[in-house]
């Protein structure tokens, strides 16, 4: 008998060639690139639109002279706020009757005013659908206060020059490094999750072809079911890594052609080369773990419709596991962090977060061995269920002559 490894290789080679040489592989390769391109384009466009549309507009009923110090004070304070945070003040010439004018301004849909600032007998008044906790009244209060201070200083013949602060940048501070590495940890987890979700789902329907065209009978008569499962997993992992390599090459080329000059991720604790290697290993483990589970579940289905029914709870389960790993990312040595590292299906995501934040290597060796064990156990369980439920094998063999894995 061929060894399981050799039999898996035969299955994997066929599946890999069949997938990579198919037309659908081109679509598979192009899909994420197009998706990311569209996302970036639409995101930028929508962001711009939203920023403009969501900016709170406040009407200021004032003469030009009265509005000038207010506008000047707002201009001075504006650098302290984000572009989309500070309310837009629009001067409106006062009517003869201010009361009805306020009502008209708030009712005018095209003007989009959230509040109207006017002067009343007791001082300034802000009328609108805003509460005391909203940013708009606080901003208006700060602007008016600054305007009054400026007017008072001017009346006293004094000016206060703007404060100058010398910035001294240090390369590292413990707090900043920890915060930055937590960002890398979460980015690593997110990437691992997204790529696995995108790629491992293919395995749910992987056995449908063999079952529908009856090739499974030919395979099952020649090699152990475990070898079929391992071969299919190996093939799809190779297909995914091929896709990732091509996408990464495309991304690198895109960055070279159109350098963005944007912020880069902080250096992980184990350094970039090792982090990338570990990311690949943990992606492979995450893929194999989820893939083995998907393959086992999908092999029980007899039609694409059944596979679709299974895929929904599977996706929800994945999201929960991702949230668990993300919640535990910050406390990699705490109880939750250790639990996430031990639970096989969250372990790869937890460990990549650990690689970003802690420099020791031995936990990774231990985790990889642990995850590999679970891959094997999941494959063995899936193959066993397939033999029992699909091939209707097994049952009551009691004599040594009847080896189950024959």
């Amino acid at each position, binding site marked *: 008998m061929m060894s399981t490894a050799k039999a898996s290789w*035969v299955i994997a080679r066929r599946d890999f060639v*069949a997938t990579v040489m*198919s037309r659908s592989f081109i679509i598979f390769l192009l899909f994420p690139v197009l998706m990311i391109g569209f996302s970036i384009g639409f995101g930028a466009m929508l962001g711009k639109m939203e920023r403009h549309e969501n900016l709170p507009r406040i009407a200021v009923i004032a003469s030009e002279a009265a509005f000038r110090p207010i506008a000047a004070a707002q201009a001075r304070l504006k650098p302290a706020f984000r572009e989309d945070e500070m309310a837009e003040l629009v001067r409106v010439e006062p009517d003869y009757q201010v009361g009805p004018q306020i009502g008209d301004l708030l009712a005018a849909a095209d003007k989009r005013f959230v509040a109207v600032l006017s002067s009343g007998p007791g001082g300034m008044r802000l009328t609108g659908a805003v509460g005391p906790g909203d940013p708009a009244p606080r901003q208006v209060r700060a602007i008016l206060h600054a305007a009054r201070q400026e007017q008072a200083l001017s009346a006293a013949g004094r000016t206060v020059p703007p404060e100058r602060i010398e910035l001294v940048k240090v390369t590292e501070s413990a707090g900043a490094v920890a915060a930055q590495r937590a960002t890398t940890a979460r980015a690593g987890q997110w990437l691992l999750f997204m790529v696995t979700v995108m790629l491992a789902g293919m395995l749910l329907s992987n056995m449908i072809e063999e079952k529908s065209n009856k090739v499974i009978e030919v395979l099952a008569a*020649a*090699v152990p079911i475990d070898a079929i499962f391992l071969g299919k997993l190996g093939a799809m992992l190779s297909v995914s890594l091929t896709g990732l390599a091509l996408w990464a090459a495309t991304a690198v080329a895109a960055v070279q052609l159109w350098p963005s000059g944007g912020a880069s991720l902080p250096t992980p604790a184990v350094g970039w080369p090792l982090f990338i290697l570990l990311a690949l290993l943990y992606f492979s483990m995450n893929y194999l773990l989820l893939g083995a589970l998907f393959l086992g579940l999908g092999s029980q289905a007899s039609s694409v419709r059944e596979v679709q029914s299974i895929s929904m709870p599977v996706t929800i389960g994945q999201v929960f596991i991702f949230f668990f790993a993300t919640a535990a990312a910050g406390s990699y040595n705490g109880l939750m962090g250790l639990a996430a590292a031990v639970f096989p299906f969250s372990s790869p995501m937890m460990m990549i977060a650990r690689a970003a934040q802690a420099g020791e290597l031995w936990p990774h060796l231990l985790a990889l061995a642990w995850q590999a064990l679970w891959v094997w156990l999941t494959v063995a369980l899936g193959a066993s269920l397939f033999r029992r439920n699909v*091939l*209707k094998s097994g*049952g009551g*063999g009691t004599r040594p002559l009847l080896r189950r894995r024959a």
Partner: protein
Amino acid sequence: MKGELPKVANGLAIEARGLFKAFDGKTAVDGIDIHVPEGTIYGVLGPNGAGKTTTLRMLLGIIDPDRGERRLLGREAPLEAAAEVGYLPEERGLYPAMKTKEAIAFMGALRGLPLALGRARAEGMLRDNGLGDYVDKPIKSLSKGMAQTVQLFGTIVHRPRLIVLDEPFSGLDAINQGRLEAMIREEAAGGATILFSTHVIAHAERLCERVAIIAAGRVRFEGRVDEARGRLRPRVRLRTRSTDGAWRSALPPRADQENGAWLFELPETGVEPLLRALIDGGAGIEELSIERPGLHDAFVAIAGEAAAREMGADAPAGDEA
């Protein structure tokens, strides 16, 4: 593969005792015993639903029996002998997008044949059998008969010692059935053991040295084809000019008359005493024939009239025994 390994110690390519299998509480195979000597062409006969396919799947290790023992080429674990076995399942299965040559080589590779050698042999097999134009064509471009032929090539490309064919003739036209029979004889002549299941008695009668007759999940007979036929006495057909006389007492008491001819089993004493009585009694013999029973008659006697009717109904025209 074939001939590279020593013969099985007890000379049996397949040995099974008391195989039992039930699906969802319904018994499919009920204590089957089979012994297939090496180098023979062995037929498993039975109507649809008799348990033939389940028996073959258990023998090959695709499924495990609930009870019983089996050995394949001397191995207790059938998959350990996979490299020396070729299997053509009843439900043919090929990857539609795969090239013909690659499909054959892949099936060989599953049984341990190096891919390059498999490709070379596949090309040769296809060209020798008039399918040279389809070497690099995808399976989906082949007719059903061609695809079955390709799968058969994939079954034997690694030159197995044991070839198991489940209903190999089903779906083939008469010409391809003839080709398949020739191929089976050729493989057997080369030393391979052939085990095939069929519900068409004519194929078994033409090809097999030994048969197992299965009905309702049980083996009703296992042995040589002539042994099966030998279970029945030869039938005598007699037509005489005289309708009555002293010679009538020489006929067996259960002799039937049909269209003026007497039909009866050949008496234990042989034909000579009967002949003497007919001549001495002046019966005037117009026709006297002794017919050996066919496998179909044996099957009827062994498996029952209902099973035989079912097999006859399923057999393609011209193949009923």
